[in-house]
């Protein structure tokens, strides 16, 4: 019995022990943040563990007690809501402004056209069967994609043909897989080297949607490594990486 208790104690202790700062991050920053984490590791020796997901899902997890120390969101509203509810240290800071891109997989007949004029034509002549975006309900980039299509006057006709990704990563997966004829996805994902052979993309003019200002904030439980990483994310090295991945930086 005593041995069992000891084993249980070790188990819970090991479960609670932190191995590096724990970060929750929106899926659109995946490729940029992986690079930043690697650079941070080289510069400081700290390890950072990142969980990627849709901003809405991650915010929900934080409200349910997930042990994250830093939340790198895809919008401002989620951070402000968490700040108002007392989960964060402060209102945080904007670390990047995102852009959308139209991604067209190889073999699709859709033109890589930033005005979405060909998308409209493809809907009319039935070339377009499926179009991928992230769910507008919980992914900020999904909401931006909806605004772009509303402004281009195609929202009502495209709606029955949309496939909704649970996060932008899944929407990107749908768009690049070739099953959809295209998708509106974060520029930072569409321009990733991993996708170079999968298709082509064009950046959407950012006047087409409300600005995708992305905010991050430290949680109350943040430790020294997480605090150092948050500062690093606002520093010159991280800003350079973000710009290389297609973000504007404040």
């Amino acid at each position, binding site marked *: 019995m005593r041995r069992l208790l000891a084993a249980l104690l070790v188990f819970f202790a090991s479960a609670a022990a932190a191995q590096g700062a724990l970060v929750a991050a929106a899926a659109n920053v995946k490729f940029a943040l992986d690079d930043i984490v690697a650079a941070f590791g080289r510069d400081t020796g700290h390890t950072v563990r990142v969980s990627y997901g849709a901003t809405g899902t*991650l915010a929900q997890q934080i409200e*349910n007690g997930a*042990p994250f120390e830093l939340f790198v969101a895809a919008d401002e509203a989620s951070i402000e809501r968490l700040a108002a509810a007392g989960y964060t240290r402060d209102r945080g800071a904007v670390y990047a402004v995102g852009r959308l891109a139209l991604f067209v997989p190889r073999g699709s007949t859709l033109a890589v056209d930033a005005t979405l004029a060909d998308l409209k034509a493809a809907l009319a002549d039935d070339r377009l069967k499926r179009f991928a975006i992230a769910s507008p309900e919980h992914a900020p980039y999904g909401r931006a994609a909806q605004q772009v299509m509303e402004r281009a006057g195609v929202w009502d006709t495209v709606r029955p043909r949309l496939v909704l990704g649970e996060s932008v990563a899944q929407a*990107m997966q749908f768009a690049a897989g070739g099953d959809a004829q295209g998708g509106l996805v974060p520029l930072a994902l569409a321009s*990733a080297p*991993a996708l170079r052979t999968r298709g082509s993309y064009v950046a959407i003019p950012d006047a087409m949607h409300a600005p995708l200002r992305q905010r991050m904030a430290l949680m109350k439980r943040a430790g020294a490594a997480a605090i150092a990483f948050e500062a690093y994310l606002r520093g010159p090295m991280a800003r350079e990486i973000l710009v290389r991945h297609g973000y504007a930086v404040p």
Partner: protein
Amino acid sequence: MDWTAFRLSLWLAAWTLAVLLPLGIVAARWLATTRSRARPWLEALTALPLVLPPTVVGFYLLVAFGARSPLGDAFARAFGAPLAFSFAGLVVASVIVNVPFAVQPLQRAFAAIPAEVREAAQCCGLSRWQAFVRIELPLAWPGVLSAAVLTFAHTLGEFGVVLMVGGSIPGETRTIAIAIYDRVQAFDTGGAGTMALLLVAVSFATVAVAFGLSDRWLARATR
């Protein structure tokens, strides 16, 4: 290849087995022999995780484990860490979703033991506990084995519930199934393929070994 995730999955399967098997044996033995009128209802309850979608089970567990529920709050106070999105929370969730995989083979095994055998054991002066350990458990061994194998293999492959209550925290709740999903989302088809292959190999080997053991047992029993 994400070895941390693989180790975590094995570790989760082992813990699930260690917690669930003793509880499952007690519950199945009772279900197999009771004449209670509540039995069909309790049987239905143990089978429920099998028929409900993982999102439903995951949703209820998330609500029950969360920092805003009494259970989640009590756990967080006692251990200083929340139950949701922790390894301990995954073990609890995994035990619950695996109940049917453990209880059903065990219950069938105990039900297959004729009542006369139990009575004979009592006549020989064995206490109920002695009869259980020396007579019933060895007779039910194939059921125990298949319960253990099903639970172990099913835990390795569990996805939906782990995704709902675990998040995807490296070294804590990112199991091999979640890691494969993450790799696919990151367009790392090679990494996803390697891990998927490993999972197939391990699951196949686990089940094959179990069939082998059970064949040997049958051969010995009929000799």
